[in-house]
């Protein structure tokens, strides 16, 4: 091959690299190893973790330990799906394209929206993109975000806002909720959107109808983040006036994987379609008239519009969206409702049992779904550590996320937890 290109050594091919910037030494990295040795090293690293999936975990806060049907990963392991690029050549990408079309359809169903995109990186970035889209759509630059939205998401929103393209105002939390009367003080004719999460970070139901009316009365959009695992049980945000609905799709068939990759889902009302970020798949026909799928509405996107694009997003989370679609197909509407009902029932059972022990107080009284916060009367850090030693993840210590929430523990319960596990956990935590 070298002679075919007129070179005597491979270094000849790098002559265009100025001598001053050639590395001239080996990379300071260990030498390569056989697959067997690499596998052993990786397994040893994996074995040094005690994954939540092996423990009795009550940790949620945006990432949930739901059951993933076996079929999901068998589909994901098909190399035709995972080794393919973005479907820019539709003639040989119908598998990816049809799946995205079906995924978009499922997201429209659970959000109640008219159109959805092919996915975003995660819930937090989908949430930020919704704020940016609302600003473009309304030609206003202030967004009012509920203080009851996941604290990490709000930090992400603030970080993006440092660019100066939007201004973020945070609505205070009262009894774990966003009061429409308080939000009204912050909303004016410069407001592009009100952004809330429902259920919110504390698991509570927000007064969506009131907040949606408030947004619309000011000419702003209403952006709602939702948990798709509860969509079988809860009314869609569309019913309460949402204009853009986003969320973290990890609960739909995706491993927790230390928090990534999951996927962000993004849906909106049809009138805002042309401001939507990300890829969109549409159905059309080929030259023979056969039905087929293709990336469409691409004049919104960076590879066409460059600095005038609706977003810089290129790679999305197509494989995670595939997992979500296979999951939703597997459980169906009935299964999704069963998941939601089980999570909610078990969460209520746990909360009651913990309050009955007297070692936890209830800081909030608002109705909740499958997640709730309690105040631990003792030392949360010590309790958490000891319970971990005993094989439990005793929820999420909110003080570790935000010092303002010191002493609070956020519990999430999925359908995987059994009554016996919950009873045993309560017994152990009381015994500390």
């Amino acid at each position, binding site marked *: *091959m070298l002679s075919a*290109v007129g*070179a005597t050594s491979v270094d000849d*091919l790098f002559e*265009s690299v*100025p001598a001053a910037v050639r*590395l001239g030494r080996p*990379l300071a990295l260990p*030498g*390569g190893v056989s697959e067997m040795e690499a596998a052993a090293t*990786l397994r040893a*690293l994996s074995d040094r*973790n005690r*994954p939540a999936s*092996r423990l009795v975990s009550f*940790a949620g806060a945006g*990432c949930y330990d739901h*059951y993933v049907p076996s079929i999901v990963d068998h589909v994901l392991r098909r190399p035709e*799906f*995972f*080794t*393919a*690029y*973005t479907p820019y050549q539709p*003639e040989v990408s119908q598998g990816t394209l049809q*799946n995205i079309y*079906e995924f*978009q359809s499922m997201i429209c*169903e659970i959000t109640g929206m008219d159109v959805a995109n092919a996915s975003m990186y995660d819930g937090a970035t989908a949430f930020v993109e919704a704020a940016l889209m609302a600003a473009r759509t309304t030609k206003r630059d202030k967004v009012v975000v509920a203080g009851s939205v996941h604290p*990490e998401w709000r930090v992400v929103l603030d*970080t993006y806002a440092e660019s100066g*393209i939007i201004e973020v105002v945070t609505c205070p939390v009262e009894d774990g909720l966003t009061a429409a009367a308080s939000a009204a003080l912050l909303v004016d004719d410069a407001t592009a959107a009100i952004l809330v999460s429902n259920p919110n970070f504390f698991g509570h139901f927000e007064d969506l109808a009131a907040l949606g009316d408030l947004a619309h009365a000011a000419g702003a959009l209403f952006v709602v983040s939702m948990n798709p695992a509860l*969509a079988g049980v809860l009314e869609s945000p569309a019913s309460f006036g949402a204009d853009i609905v986003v969320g973290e799709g990890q609960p739909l068939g995706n*491993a927790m994987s230390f928090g*990534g*990759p999951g996927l962000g889902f993004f849906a909106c009302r049809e009138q805002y379609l042309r401001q939507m970020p990300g890829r969109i798949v549409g159905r*059309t026909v*080929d*030259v023979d008239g056969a039905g087929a799928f293709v990336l*469409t509405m691409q004049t919104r996107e*960076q*590879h066409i519009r*460059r*600095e005038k694009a609706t977003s810089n997003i*290129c*790679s999305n*989370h*197509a494989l995670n969206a595939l997992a979500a679609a296979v999951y939703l*197909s*597997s*459980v169906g509407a*009935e299964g999704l*409702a*069963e998941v939601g*009902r089980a999570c909610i*029932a078990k969460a*209520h059972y746990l909360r009651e049992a913990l309050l009955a022990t007297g070692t936890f107080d209830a800081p909030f009284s608002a109705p909740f779904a499958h997640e709730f916060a309690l105040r631990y009367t003792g030392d949360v850090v010590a309790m958490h550590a000891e319970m971990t030693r005993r094989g439990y*993840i005793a929820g999420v210590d909110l003080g570790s*996320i935000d010092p303002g929430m010191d002493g609070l523990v956020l519990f999430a319960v999925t*359908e995987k937890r059994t009554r016996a596990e919950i009873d045993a956990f309560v017994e152990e935590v009381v015994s500390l």
Partner: protein
Amino acid sequence: MTRDDALNPAMAPSRGPRELIFELGTPANRCTEIPAPDVPEVPADALAGQSRTCGLRLPHVTEVDVARHYHHLATMNFGVDSGSYPLGSCTMKYNPRLNEDACRLEGFAGLHPYQPLDTAQGALELMVSLADALGEVSGLPGVTLQPAAGAHGELTALMVFRAYHTANGDPRKRVVIPDAAHGTNPASVAMCGYEVTTIASDENGAVDLDALRAALDTDVAALMLTNPNTLGLFDPNIVEITKAVHEVGALAYCDGANLNAIMGKARPGDMGFDAMHINLHKTFSTPHGGGGPGAGPVCVTPALTPFLPGPLPVRNADGTFGLGWTEHSIGRIRSYFGNFGVLVRAYAYVLALGGDGLREASEQAVLSANYMKERLKSVYPLPYDRTCMHEFVLSGDELRKKYGVRTLDVAKRLLDYGVHPPTIYFPLIVHESIMIEPTETESLADLDRMCEALIAIAHEAESDPDLLHGAPYTTPVRRLDEARAVKQPDLRWNPADEL
């Protein structure tokens, strides 16, 4: 009798799209059932008036239906395992199966982001080790693994630049980008609240130093540059370029899309770049997944490290691992710590190849690209005829002028030869461009097969241009009516539309 004659068209299995999954099964069909709760149910009226009242229209199928549906979808896709995939700028290298196994180990896949850090030491160590390796490969030792994709990495770095300039009391306004740049560059600039200044490339396809100097002033926050550039050429003036940028107090950003050309040979940090992103789904063999998930870690100089987003995995003084924040961190650019499952795959690749293996991968990628370039340049004009790096850009303009055959036609015809088309119509500075990146994955026999297919197609363009205009013929569907998709948007299944 031929095979085609033997087929009963009414009974032949379809190779193209079939029913939507919504259209399969009957309402009674179920795949996965969830056990009934073993605790009392919560009444619907406890749900703050938000209990669902109307049914959800999701698929109702058996597990066999699910398996067959997605099997059929898979058969309509072309992946790296299906055949050669010389998609320029995308680095479609083989995805080692060890990576796939590693990220699914329960000790990784089952981790919750908020579980106590002393129960996630192996994961944190893996992240620290990967960050160290990326710092060494890039020559830029400050690393955040959080960005979810290349474009996300670009935006992250620009936010870091903004914070750095702001901390110096000089926030600045503009970012300079050559005309050959990826579209994500200007889009990221706009998202970071900067203005784009585009400069033309010179006659060699490199940065025009005079145009650059003319564009640089103290309002410029940064230059974003892909090096090797999108023509697959290493910019010979790279040291002068980054020096000129620094002279006006601006920062130099390297789009790492083309890192696969130079691992172990040259490092962006040594070229004077202040930051770069690395597409782990290109250079570090993690799969593209039909569009993602990827990961776009950002590597920066020590001067910029204090501004990186958090939290960062760190090695503590006592040898344990934790998470930390830098002094002037810009904040967070996503939830949790990054696309950890992708990071595991990339680390598996680093472990298996080692430092020498990474260098050899780049050397082979460059050799393979030059081999194809030499075989093809007499058939397809090569506007910038120099030794290339890991990719090169041909022009289909001659075929267009002589035979009315466009690059799009060549690309579609390649599908009939079982080869995924190269990137086409990018970069914009070459007419009818054909951007070929074979990667180190392809064997000599496969490189020859790709060349022979492209040469055969050039002959077909001459002898039977309509053959190319009508291509492809053998794919699950043929050319699509993209205009109809835009004019009559059909973006979701909706049974109401079909009544």
